């Protein structure tokens, strides 16, 4: 089995809070992978460590076998990333921003023009090409950010809560896009709160809680792990697994205190 993303025993703390506690995670090539978990579970921290915006305290992260610390330039060129709250250069037009995104990712001049034509057409942004980003709605900005993450046609697309702020047509468009990319052998890695969407869209999911991977796999495996029965939804599976993880966490904490 070839993995495009590998996280091995990743630890991260900031401001005295332990965000990740030995997280292990594997994402296969050519799948839509979902990272789900309650607020503060460490989803965004995990994504930020993978894309290099945060530095882990210890552990190992590889994308397509490339270590982020050994070959950072080569590593980052494999990834397209869209954060949860998108901040874009308001002073550029949509076209200028896409040119900029392509240029800093080393896309050739000829390909930049082609990719911009393709992406603006795909995201229905043709009439906004000359508009300043400051004048765009939140949904439009999200589309521009996703277009810029795809400008270099990366092997791995990472999106933090991609459906927030996007209208139903836009959400449908995104789901179509993700499926198309997977057909082309690319990988899509999303974090989301929308469990029904994750259930329908993702090939596999990982449930993380308090910085640890509670369970991962396709829905069938998760149902077996949670013993929730054949007809259970991802939401029911999620709630059961989180409840068990909470019980385990409390028991571990009490044991730890007992020893002290």
């Amino acid at each position, binding site marked *: 089995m070839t993995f495009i993303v590998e996280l091995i025993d990743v630890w991260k703390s*900031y401001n005295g809070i332990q965000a990740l506690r030995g997280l292990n995670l594997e994402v296969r090539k050519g799948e839509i992978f979902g990272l789900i978990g309650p607020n503060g579970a460490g989803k965004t921290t995990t994504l*930020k460590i993978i*894309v*290099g*915006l*945060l*530095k882990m305290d210890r552990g190992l992260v590889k994308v397509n076998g490339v270590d982020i610390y050994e070959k*950072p*330039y*080569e*590593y*980052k*060129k494999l*990834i397209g*990333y869209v*954060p949860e709250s998108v*901040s*874009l*250069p*308001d*002073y*550029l*037009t949509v*076209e*200028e921003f896409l*040119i*900029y*995104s*392509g*240029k*800093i*990712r*080393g896309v050739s*001049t000829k390909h*930049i*023009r082609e990719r911009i034509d393709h992406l603006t057409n795909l995201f229905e942004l043709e009439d906004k090409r*000359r508009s*300043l980003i*400051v*004048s765009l709605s939140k949904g439009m900005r999200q589309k521009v950010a996703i277009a*810029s993450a795809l400008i270099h046609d990366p092997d791995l697309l990472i999106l933090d809560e991609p459906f927030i702020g996007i209208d139903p047509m836009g959400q449908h468009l995104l789901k179509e896009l993700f499926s198309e990319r997977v057909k082309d052998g690319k990988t899509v890695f999303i974090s989301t709160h929308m469990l029904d969407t994750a259930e329908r869209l993702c090939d596999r999911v990982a449930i993380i809680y308090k910085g640890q991977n509670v369970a991962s796999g396709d829905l069938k495996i998760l149902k077996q792990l949670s013993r929730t029965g054949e007809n259970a939804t991802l939401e029911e599976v999620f709630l059961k697994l989180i409840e068990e993880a909470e019980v385990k966490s409390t028991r571990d904490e009490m044991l730890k205190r007992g020893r002290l």
Partner: protein
Amino acid sequence: MRIHVILNLYIFKVKMLLGTLKASKASIALLIFYTFGLLPGLFGLSLTLSNAVRETVDINPCIEQLSSIASLLMVFAISLALRGYTVFEYEQNIILTSPIKPREYLIADTFSNLTSLSIFANPLVIFYLMIVYLLKLSISSALLILLSVLLFTFTLLFLKVSFSIVKSLYRGVLTNIFILATIFLLLFPSAGLISDLPIGYTLLPYPSTFLAKIIVGLVYGLDNLIIDLTGLSFYFLLSLLFFLSASMKNFFPSVSSIPFISPFDTSMRMQNLQMERSIRVFSRMGVISILNPESRSILVFLMKKEFIRVLREGSLFTIILLYLLASLIATSISGSLSQNQQILPYSLTFIVGVYSLTIPLMLVSNWRASDSGNLWIQLTSGMDIYAMVKALLYTFISLSSTIPVVVVAVLSMIYKVNPVAPLILTISTSMIGCSVNLYVMIGLIKLKGIGAPSLLIGLVSMLLSILLLTPVYILVMLELNLGFGDARSWLSIVVVVAYSILITKILSKEIGKNIYNIEL
């Protein structure tokens, strides 16, 4: 009209204004810095004014100057009405949707505006007290001056509010013509600033002229001020009537909302909002694109992108405006202090020295407000971050040095003075100032995140810049006082440039290292 509703609304609005002041120590520091920063200048101005009053025989020029300034204030206030009546977003959501009457809202709004004005005008109160003391004015004269200023201020506020309501309710061409005609008429007394124009507007009954005549009359101890006081009161009553009739209209559905920006709020969110507003304003001038993927050098490409930013966010416009002002100040100082141009190199060097320190701070602060939140794009792209640092630095240095160099060169040619001292200062302050400011900014973002306090960044940057510029200041002082001669002057330029390049190189490497270690 319900007084308790007006009072509650007034208190709410003032609390909104002052809430941000209480919330951040940086805001309080900013207010204290603002007040005490202006005091030395106001003290000097009050001394100069009181001396001038004692020596002046002809009071007409004083009336002309004062009425010109007052009239410009009126023009400014009424021109604000051209965008219609604006309210803050929180007011539109919370207040305008409640069962409050337009007049109740307007009265509370007017008084809260007056409160915020008085907080900002607090150095002017000290200035007023100094003038009263230095000129030994009687209590009755001092109170009459205060009353006249208050009447004039209320007239301004009432006119601004009423014109704004008219503009919001009737958005046709006729309204614009009406407002613009009023502005045009009020511009006549401003012609007093150009003293040679033979216009006898001081004889015309403008509110600004009445105010000027009352103040100057009271200062010079004249007693026939009844007509002027009646004239000013008449305009006050007229504006009040206009205000009362405008406040009868339900203008709530026609207002436009703006984000709430408190002048005391120094948070990053507020700076971003202000920058967004600035981009919207400057983008109205047209969007000319110079960014194309054909650029072979990534450095040139990135510099073009930075140039677009400073153009569209208004930084370039501010620099040009500041240096136009600087050259005016430099030439007027030398003109007023001496009949010959001996003083010009000193005043030019001083002004350039002060401005050159603030421009890098402004450029870097504006970059932080508009672009530091977008660092995730570069940091996740796999680009060479050092190229980005170089592009930023080179753009800042070229912008902060080119315009002053042109100003210094032009003034030196016109007045035939030696440009070496101001040139040395401009070049080195620009190079060292830009690299120090960016170094401190990135260092503090690395330590404290994007929301690191701006005031702290500004203060540390200024101190470090001055420290590193000490050798340059010494060299400039020697050049100004001793005059090195041509060969030594050029040598001193070479030495200073070499020193500045060295500092810039060292700091740019450190900036590159720090950017890699930023966690977002």
